[in-house]
């Protein structure tokens, strides 16, 4: 599909393309991303268990990582996942499902450092998302501090570095 003029976005959604997203959509996307992280952690746990079983089947017992370790791993996965997703396409899986994209202050994709800092900020201070409801510009605390935006972007494909579709 050419980006020149024909938009695959449904007609009723076109006026919203390029607008900053509100709290509900972003919360739903965040929940989905949380599920993804949980899924990754679970997969990691299963993989670790399998490795342990293969290494020492007789002395096998399910690993019982401590909470701090689990939180640390979750934190790590979350930061890496967000950094890679925002750098490559501006979308995490949750954003992809909900039609969102994270862009910089000029509308461009985030760079590695920007994506990493934002991922770190979101992981440390997730409650900052609630500020979207209060902000007149639909911006979270992270958006305000880092001058980023989360916009509606239903375009199914976008090359890295390409801007969000304004509809």
């Amino acid at each position, binding site marked *: 599909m050419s980006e020149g003029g*024909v938009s695959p976005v449904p007609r009723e959604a076109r006026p919203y393309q390029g607008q900053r997203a*509100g709290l509900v959509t972003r919360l739903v996307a965040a929940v989905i991303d949380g599920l993804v992280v949980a899924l990754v952690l679970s997969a990691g746990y299963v993989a670790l268990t399998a490795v342990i079983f293969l290494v020492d089947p007789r002395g096998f017992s399910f690993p019982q990582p401590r909470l701090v370790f689990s939180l640390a791993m979750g934190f790590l996965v979350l930061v890496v996942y967000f950094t890679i997703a925002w750098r490559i396409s501006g979308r995490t899986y949750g954003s992809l499902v909900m*039609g969102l994209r994270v862009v910089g202050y000029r509308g461009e994709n985030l760079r590695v450092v920007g994506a990493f800092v934002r991922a770190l900020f979101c992981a440390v201070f997730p409650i900052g998302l609630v500020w979207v409801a209060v902000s007149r*510009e639909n911006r979270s605390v992270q958006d305000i501090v880092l001058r980023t935006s989360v916009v509606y972007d*239903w375009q*199914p494909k976008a090359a890295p570095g390409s*801007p969000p579709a304004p509809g």
Partner: protein
Amino acid sequence: MRSRATVDVAVGASALVLEVVAVAARGAGSALRPVASVVLRPPVVPRRLHPARLLDVLGREGAERREPLREALSRRLDVLVPAVLAEVLRRAHLTEMVLRYVDLDEVVAGVDLDAAAARLDVEGVVRRVDLDAVARRIDVDAVAARLDLDKVVGRVDVDPVVARVDVDAVAARLDLGRVLDRLDLTSVVLERVDLDALVEAILGRIDLVGLAEEVIDAVDLPEIIRESTGSMASDTVRGARMQGIAADEAVGRAVDRLLLRRGRRATDAPTIPRQNDRTP
């Protein structure tokens, strides 16, 4: 030649005789005048018996009968003269005589043709002429063959003629439909029109991209593509997204109302130009 000489001699003799007779008559007249006076009025005869008186009576009677006689004679002449004249003309070969004896050039030179033309009732003449019959008898081809049209046209000053032509009226009388029916417009266009330039000019005035977008909007091509490919934006996802947008707006309005804000939120995000978008 001999007959002409004979005639000349006869004419000369006659002239001589006539001259002699005339001289003699004049001499006799002057000599006989006193005699006649005595004869007509004899001195010794009573006056009422004078021959002159008798002549007077005869003269008066003649005067009285002259008019009836003239009328009678005129009537007879009216009958007689045409018949005689016709017979004379029939035998006289008048045309030859006229041609031989009349100097037609001199006659024509003496005629005031302008005055005659002024007296002519040309309209009446034209009305009486059967122009159709005349035209039928004209061999137009022969006339045209003898015409040197180039010379004629060269002598015509076309500008004033053209200036007097009411082109609008002429055009109004034209049946353009029939003219066009007789023209093979397709071949004319193919031969005379630079189709490439024409197409370029037309395409230059058409916003093809805008037109294509209008058509695509009208047929909702994205919807067709979505339905055929079953992409991410399926009905479920689209419904969830639209509900999310509606919920976003509802939450935003509720919070704004709680915070006693007025006006809409400024949710326009910065954008950068698309890679193939020419607008800044």
